């Protein structure tokens, strides 16, 4: 964690050095099972004591709604679409992903800039331009690329929500109907992902196997990125009660993140008894 992806150009007001969490990206085509695997990973990681934030595309407070509305109309051009996605991504990066990383969360993100770049490229956008636009993106700690053949995708998509207009690339007029268009579009998307896999160091996961097998594969590889999990304090109940009061001592915060030397140096003399408001980073503990 720490650097920006493509050209290191950065975001005004954001220091990537202070990001303690891990950014784990799950990439792959429509229907490959990304959201199922993210759900499973989240349960598993939380059980191990890691705080997890799961995020996905077009859900930004700023641009999510506007983008979804634009996709329902008939006038969304390819450059506009590419930049609308970039706006949505930047908003999520600055307001969701970076704060969570600062707070030491594991951020699991369903798709990342690679999907956005692939979508732009299959629509004929200049590759240098789109990579430069995303020069502000953070470099993930791991990028898992779930890969399955288009035959498998078709079956999975049909069993779920059916073919989606954009996920079938209907704007590109690739086939006589949604099925043909989907197959062609997803093949092109996979072509882009396969190319990027080498350039950006994707870990390829064979997603044609069963959910359990894919999950086992992912777990093994995610484990490599994790710093030793901090176990919940033995008196979890008492701790939760303390947290629920809305205040916690700096000492107990320090105990919680013992591997974090940053706070140790900034936390003041030991034994100092300063009350501070409950931090957002602890809030998710209360929800479990």
């Amino acid at each position: 964690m720490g650097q920006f992806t493509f050209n290191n150009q950065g975001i005004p007001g954001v220091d990537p050095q202070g990001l303690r969490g891990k950014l784990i990206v799950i990439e792959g085509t429509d229907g490959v099972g990304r959201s199922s695997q993210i759900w499973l990973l989240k349960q598993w990681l939380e059980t191990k004591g890691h705080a997890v934030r799961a995020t996905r595309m077009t859900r930004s407070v700023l641009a999510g709604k506007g983008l979804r509305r634009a996709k329902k109309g008939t006038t969304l051009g390819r450059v506009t679409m590419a930049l609308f996605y970039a706006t949505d991504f930047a908003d999520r990066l600055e307001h969701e992903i970076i704060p969570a990383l600062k707070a030491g969360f594991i951020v699991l993100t369903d798709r990342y800039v690679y999907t956005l770049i692939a979508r732009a490229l299959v629509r004929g956008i200049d590759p240098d331009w789109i990579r430069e636009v995303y020069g502000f993106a953070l470099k993930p700690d791991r990028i898992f690329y779930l890969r399955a053949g288009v035959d498998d995708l078709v079956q999975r998509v049909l069993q779920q929500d059916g073919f989606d207009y954009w996920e079938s690339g209907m704007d590109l007029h690739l086939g006589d109907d949604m099925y043909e268009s989907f197959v062609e579009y997803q093949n092109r998307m996979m072509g882009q992902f396969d190319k990027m896999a080498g350039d950006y160091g994707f870990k390829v996961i064979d997603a044609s196997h069963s959910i359990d097998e894919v999950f086992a594969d992912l777990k093994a590889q995610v484990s490599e990125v994790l710093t030793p999990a901090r176990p919940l304090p033995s008196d979890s109940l008492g701790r939760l009660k303390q947290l629920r009061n809305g205040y916690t001592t700096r000492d107990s915060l320090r105990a919680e993140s013992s591997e974090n030397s940053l706070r140790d140096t900034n936390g003041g003399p030991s034994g100092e008894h300063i009350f501070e408001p409950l931090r957002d980073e602890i809030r998710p503990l209360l929800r479990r």
Partner: protein
Amino acid sequence: MEMSGKHNFPGRLFIVEGIDGSGKSTQLSLLHRWLESDGHAVVFGEWNSSPLVKKVTRRGKKKKLLTPMTFSLIHATDFADRTEHQIIPPLKAGSVVLADRYIYTAFARDVARGVNREWVRGLYGFAVKPTVGFYFRIALDEAISRLRTGRAGFKFYEAGADVGLADDLEESFRIFQGRIIEEYERMVEEFGLVVIDASLPIEEQQSQMRKVVAEALVGAHKTRNSQWVNLRSIIRESLE
């Protein structure tokens, strides 16, 4: 991609730039009148006006959701939509396109907010290079005194209040617009902007503009349909 840099479209693209209060919009509307009366088909567009995007921008500003990055990106999105629908098609059709503010507004404002200068230039790599870009140069004090008499107060983002330059809105506006002027001055040479002294009488500025535009219009289409076009716009205005 069919974009970027100098275009070979039969139309012409004239744009005006300058800080608020420089009088550029007045000058552009006078130019518009003249071009139409001279028989050109004219399409006019403003900054931040894409029907797909402007709602998002307006809400983002109202709720103060925008950071320098998202401010930059949402305006680029808006501009992309306008480029794809309101700028490139009329230029291909041989029209004269007028734009009140263009990519240089983004370069000036975003850099004044701390966005990387090279990055924001790359971001607008899809833009069509204008036939002529006019920059209305005005002293900051003069612009501020025009704004004070002209309308109520200074707006939050126009004053750069989001980057926390000063507690007082007018002071923030002064600092922020000062930075924007610095960026504009840097761009005059970089992009070959034509400088108009905005302290001159309105008529004098307009005649300088028309002279430059007239030269750039040599060989441009005129429309045989201007009567139809003009009548329609008169009817539309009277119905509104």
